[in-house]
């Protein structure tokens, strides 16, 4: 398919713009654009066709089942798209005076209250733009808190699980802390003995996903929390898997002090091909003074922005956060009400059903009931038939499914991480099981079907090594290289994703 730039013709354009009879203003010569940017030049019909054709080469939840583990690819209610386009929301300027933004501030305040209730904690900031920024913000809060109580120099280490998303260690580095990893025990919990050996007066805190990226609830969470609190450390909850436990178990009750919530996962902000997201953080009372500014607060019947927080870490994003995301998530939660618990119950039921039906055909590294997702391994298929988790993933495409997350978490070889979410009907789950079982049979009988897959998508397997080596990261117009002259190979990186 052609790039949009390859369809350009000088003189064509889609835009019509107002022309006013006003004198032209010259840009000072030394600042004036010498050559125009080579933006696409198309009239509107072909512009629309181009993006429509691109969309047909993409797969979303609206297209079909998308069990991408740890990403919570649930249905996105369409009413939320209508709501976010209300002029009172979409055309509201962030510098509007508070008396002209009462509806927006009230919505944000209400969402904060809801997230505090779901997390079982005291105060909330909606400002972080995504889960990973929520993580970083949480670590900044830890630093600010310990500096405030005179332990800033002393506490220089953050502990993460070896099953953690890659964002956790990356956030630790970006926040200036040292990283210490703790092992996973035979049941998929944090290894408490390893933990006891590593937690000390230098420990600022723990970052943990619970349920973990293995889809397992940590059975020793109370003991884990006690170990950290006894050492004067804090606990950070990575909310990536909150969809499993809404109304069932609250992070604050588990002992966590800081929580980020991925609004694009649990609370259904559409993922948009990679974003946007939202990563609000919710904290225990003693951490509230350090939250980002401005805070959205209620004074009687009025809502306002409070900039006067002398102990605040500052700002982590512009203005007050990604408001459109808040509109969608607020509407999503209001449609459930207290029955949010049912959302999590069905997510867990769906996952356990898939697990029960797939466990004989694939290896199950931790034999427990799962939460909202589970991790299988294709290691036996690899050993016996020479097909990998990657091959299984690619073959699923030919059956019309988006593959699960693969090669993550790192502690499971040939991992297939499957998260169906609550919005799938039993028929879809059954059909997916049929495909997975058929693929397991194919692996034994005709493995080439897996090695050659996919054959039904717009492209075959792509050469990722060539992409990284050549680093063609923009269209080069007349000088654009023709990579097709060079033989392609299905060289793909194994590590596919981390959150």
């Amino acid at each position, binding site marked *: 398919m052609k790039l949009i730039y390859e369809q350009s013709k000088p003189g064509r354009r889609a835009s019509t713009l107002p022309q006013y009879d006003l004198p032209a203003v010259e840009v000072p010569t030394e600042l004036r654009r010498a050559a125009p940017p080579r933006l696409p030049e198309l009239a509107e019909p072909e512009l629309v066709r181009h993006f429509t054709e691109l969309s047909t080469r993409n*797969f979303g939840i609206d297209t079909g089942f998308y069990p991408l583990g740890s990403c919570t690819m649930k249905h996105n209610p369409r009413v939320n798209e209508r709501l976010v386009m209300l002029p009172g929301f979409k055309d509201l300027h962030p510098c509007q005076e508070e008396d002209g933004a009462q509806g927006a501030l009230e919505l944000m305040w209400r969402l904060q209250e809801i997230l505090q209730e779901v997390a079982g904690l005291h105060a909330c900031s909606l400002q972080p733009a995504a889960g990973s920024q929520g993580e970083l913000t949480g670590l900044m809060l830890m630093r600010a808190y310990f500096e405030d109580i005179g332990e800033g120099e002393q506490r220089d280490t953050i502990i993460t699980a070896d099953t953690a998303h890659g964002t956790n260690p990356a956030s630790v580095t970006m926040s*200036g802390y040292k990283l210490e990893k703790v092992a996973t025990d035979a049941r998929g919990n944090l290894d408490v003995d390893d933990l006891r050996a590593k937690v000390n007066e230098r420990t600022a805190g723990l970052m943990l996903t619970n349920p973990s990226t293995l889809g397992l609830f940590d059975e020793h969470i109370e003991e884990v929390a006690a170990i950290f609190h006894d050492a004067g450390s804090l606990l950070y909850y990575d909310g990536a898997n909150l969809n499993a436990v809404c109304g069932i178990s609250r992070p604050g009750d588990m002992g966590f002090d800081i929580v980020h919530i991925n609004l694009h996962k649990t609370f259904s902000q559409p993922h948009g091909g990679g974003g946007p997201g939202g990563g609000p953080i919710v904290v225990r009372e003693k951490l509230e003074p350090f939250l980002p500014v401005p805070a959205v607060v209620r004074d009687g019947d009025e809502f306002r922005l409070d900039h006067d927080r002398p102990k605040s870490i500052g700002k982590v994003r512009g203005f007050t956060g990604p408001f459109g995301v808040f509109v969608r998530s607020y509407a999503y939660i209001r449609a459930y009400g207290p029955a949010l618990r049912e959302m999590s119950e069905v997510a867990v039921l769906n996952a356990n059903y898939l697990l029960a039906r797939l466990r004989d055909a694939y290896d199950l590294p931790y034999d427990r009931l799962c939460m909202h997702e589970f991790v299988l391994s294709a290691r036996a298929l690899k050993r016996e038939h020479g097909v990998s988790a990657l091959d299984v993933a690619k073959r699923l495409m030919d059956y019309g499914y988006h593959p699960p997350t693969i090669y993550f978490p790192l502690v499971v070889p040939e991992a297939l991480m499957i998260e169906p979410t609550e919005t799938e009907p039993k028929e879809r789950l059954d059909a997916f099981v049929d495909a997975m079982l058929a693929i397991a049979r194919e692996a034994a009988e005709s493995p080439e079907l897996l090695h050659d897959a996919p054959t039904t998508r717009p492209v075959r397997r792509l050469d990722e090594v060539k992409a990284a080596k050549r680093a063609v990261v923009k269209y080069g117009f007349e000088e654009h290289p023709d990579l097709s002259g060079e033989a392609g190979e299905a060289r793909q990186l194994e590590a596919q994703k*981390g959150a």
Partner: protein
Amino acid sequence: MGQLSLTDADREEMLAAIGVASVEELFRDIPAGVRFRGELDLEPALSEPELVRHLEELAAKNVDTTRELSFLGAGIYDHYVPAVVDAVLQRGEFLTAYTPYQPEMSQGVLQAIFEYQTAICELTGMDVSNASGYDGTTVAADACFVAKHATGRSKIVLAETLAPQVRQVVKTYAVGFGLEVVEVPHSGGTTDPERLAAAASGAAAVIFQQPNVFGILEDAPALAAAANDAGAMAIAHVDPVSLGVLEAPGNYGCAMAIGEGQSAGNYQSYAGPHYGFLAAKAEYTRRLPGRIIGETTDLNGERGYVLTLQTREQHIRREKATSNITTNQTLLALAGLVHLSWLGPQGLREVGETCMSLGAYAKERLGLQPAFPGTATFKEFAVRVGRPARDVIRDARAHGVHPGYAIGRGYEGMDDVLLIAVTEKRTPADIDRLAQVLAEARAR
């Protein structure tokens, strides 16, 4: 609940297949001490019509730019968003997909973001763009992280004419990054290249804004030269809509260009979600944060696109990654691509020219004392209104006109200064009305 499909019979069959008696039993691994008993204290569920009504009521409590003639800017602007943007963004295949880890399923978004990267490189004169950052503030912090590691230095110089909240975010991140932040005060509304050069000695990077926070055109080539002479990376924070008429940062010595993308393709939306863009010269490619899409071929030699240079990223490199970013702002960046494609090079230039013409008309028509005489501006300008700007705003709003931003919030001695933004959506008649309302408000 319209989001769930399981019938009672489905549940029974599924529980039987799992081998448990109840849904409750599925949660048996959760220790009793941390189980939540009772019901979440949330308001009752709303049906879809009730939900729409509730949010319409909230929306009606806001005074948006369709209800008030607005000249607000200060980083977020009321530019026209073409209808094709809405149409493309509501395609479920784009809207409801996620990060394209599986390229065979995701050629649509991969190619679109490759095209976006191309557009950003064309606008900025850079060689490589990432697939987006969160917004125009966080990309500045990202750029500092790149500069620290590229230069081995830890001082960052910020022009005071870089928007206050961008500087605030850089300072928040700087603590963990181990960076020292130095700010260079403005001189008459612009940054003095000599003062910048003095501060840039030993710095990793210098960040300035063009047009700057007051809407004024800085002598950007001289600022970039000041940074380069000191061996610091020159980083320009730019407005994409200005780059049809203003020179690209890559053509006057900048190592990186960053900015807030909202002006190109995103609604104001009370500040988000929007996208930040980050582009650099080729030598920094492997240090950039975030997703980057690259071209390659498939088994049959057909062209295709993949996430590339992933060894920079957190899911591979973990604690050694160039950033922790995962979820970015792809959908908003796609909106940017569609908007820029709709405009084309001519349309982009016309928007810039129209903003400048309307701005000149507004300055003349308002007849107010410029806050910084003798400066050239793009789509925003600062004037003294002779009273606290906040009072003038209040009085003007009583007449249905929001006259601009009280820039004194971020700068001392400017309490009587109003920052007025004029986009192509404002008309000469709108400006006449602003002049009339401001004259009345000032007379009070």
